[in-house]
C-alpha cells in the first residue's frame, strides 16, 4: 500500500504528511533542548560561582566547529536546491560534503572531549562540566543521527530518485529541516557554554 500524501498535499492541512510530521517532531525537540537549557539556567543561577566557558573550554575549536556546521547547513540546502533543478549529480556532491562536514564536527568534538578527559575533567568534576557534557553529548547524537539519514539518502535511499523524484526531493527537504535544526541548536549552545 502506498504511503498517502507523500507528494500531493492534504486538503485539510495544505501540507504533505512528511512535512507536518517533521515539524511536529522538531517542536518536540525544541522542548527537549528547552528543558536542558532551563536546567542549565537553574544550575548556573543557583551556583555560588560559575566559571567562564573560555577558561575551561577551547573557543578556537568551538568557533571552527560553528563555521563547519553553518557551512554544512548551506551545502544541505544546496543539495535540496540541486534536486529542485533536477541535477542529481550536483545533489550527490553537496550531500556528500554535508556528511563530511558533519564528520569533521564530530572529529573536532572527539579531540575536545579527549583533551578534557585526559585532564580529569569528566562530568563528575563540576556542575559546569556535567551540563557541558550533557548538552554537547545530546547535540552530538543529533549530528550523528542526521548524518546517518543523510548518508542513506546519498547512498541506497537515492534509488527513489529514479522512480519518484518528487517524493525523494521531499524526503531530502525533511532531512534538511532536521539538519538545520541541529545547526540552530549549536548556534545557541556555542555562546552559552563557551563564551559566557
Amino acid at each position, binding site marked *: 500500500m502506498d504511503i498517502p500524501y507523500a507528494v500531493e498535499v492534504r486538503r485539510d*492541512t*495544505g*501540507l504533505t504528511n512528511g*512535512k*507536518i510530521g517533521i*515539524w*511536529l517532531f522538531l*517542536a518536540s525537540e*525544541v*522542548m527537549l533542548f*528547552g*528543558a536542558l*537549557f*532551563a*536546567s542549565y*539556567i*537553574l544550575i*548556573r*543561577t*543557583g*551556583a*555560588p*560561582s*560559575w566559571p*567562564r566557558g*573560555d577558561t575551561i573550554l577551547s*573557543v578556537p575549536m568551538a*568557533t571552527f566547529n*560553528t*563555521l563547519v556546521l*553553518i*557551512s554544512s*547547513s*548551506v551545502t*544541505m*540546502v*544546496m543539495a535540496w*536546491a540541486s534536486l*529542485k*533543478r533536477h541535477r542529481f549529480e550536483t545533489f550527490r556532491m553537496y550531500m556528500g560534503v554535508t556528511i563530511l562536514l558533519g564528520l569533521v564536527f564530530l572529529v573536532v568534538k572527539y579531540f575536545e572531549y579527549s583533551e578534557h578527559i585526559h585532564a580529569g575533567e569528566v562530568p563528575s568534576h563540576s556542575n559546569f562540566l556535567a551540563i557541558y557534557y550533557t548538552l554537547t553529548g545530546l547535540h552530538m547524537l543529533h549530528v550523528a543521527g542526521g548524518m546517518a539519514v543523510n548518508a542513506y539518502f546519498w547512498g541506497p535511499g537515492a534509488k527513489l530518485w529514479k522512480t519518484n523524484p518528487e517524493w525523494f526531493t521531499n524526503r531530502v527537504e525533511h532531512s*534538511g*529541516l532536521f539538519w*538545520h*535544526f541541529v*545547526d*540552530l541548536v549549536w*548556534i*545557541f549552545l*556555542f*555562546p*552559552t557554554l563557551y*563564551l*559566557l
Partner: protein
Amino acid sequence: MDTTTSDHAADIDRHVRVYITVFASLMVLTIVTVAVSRFHLPVPVAVTVALLVATIKGSLVACYFMHLISEKKLIVAILALTVIFFIALISLPILTVSNGLGIH
C-alpha cells in the same frame, strides 16, 4: 524549456543567491559573537549581546534555510505554540532567582 520550467529555475536561482547571502551573514555574526566575548563585558550585558546575536543567527537559519518565511500558516502556528511553551519553560528557573546570572 517551457515558460513554467524557466520561471521555476529562475526562482531556485534566486533562492540560491539568498542562501549565499545568509551564509555570509552567519559567518560574519559568528566572528562578531567571538569578538564581543573578548571585551569581557559585565555578565548581564554579555548574556544579552550573545543571545541577541544568536537569536539573529537562529532566525536567519529558520527563516531562509528552513523556509519558514514562506511556510504555511499551520506550521507557523505550531511553532508559535512551541515558542510560548519554550518561553514558559525557560522562564521558570529565571523566576526562581533574584541574585544575578551566576558569576558573583
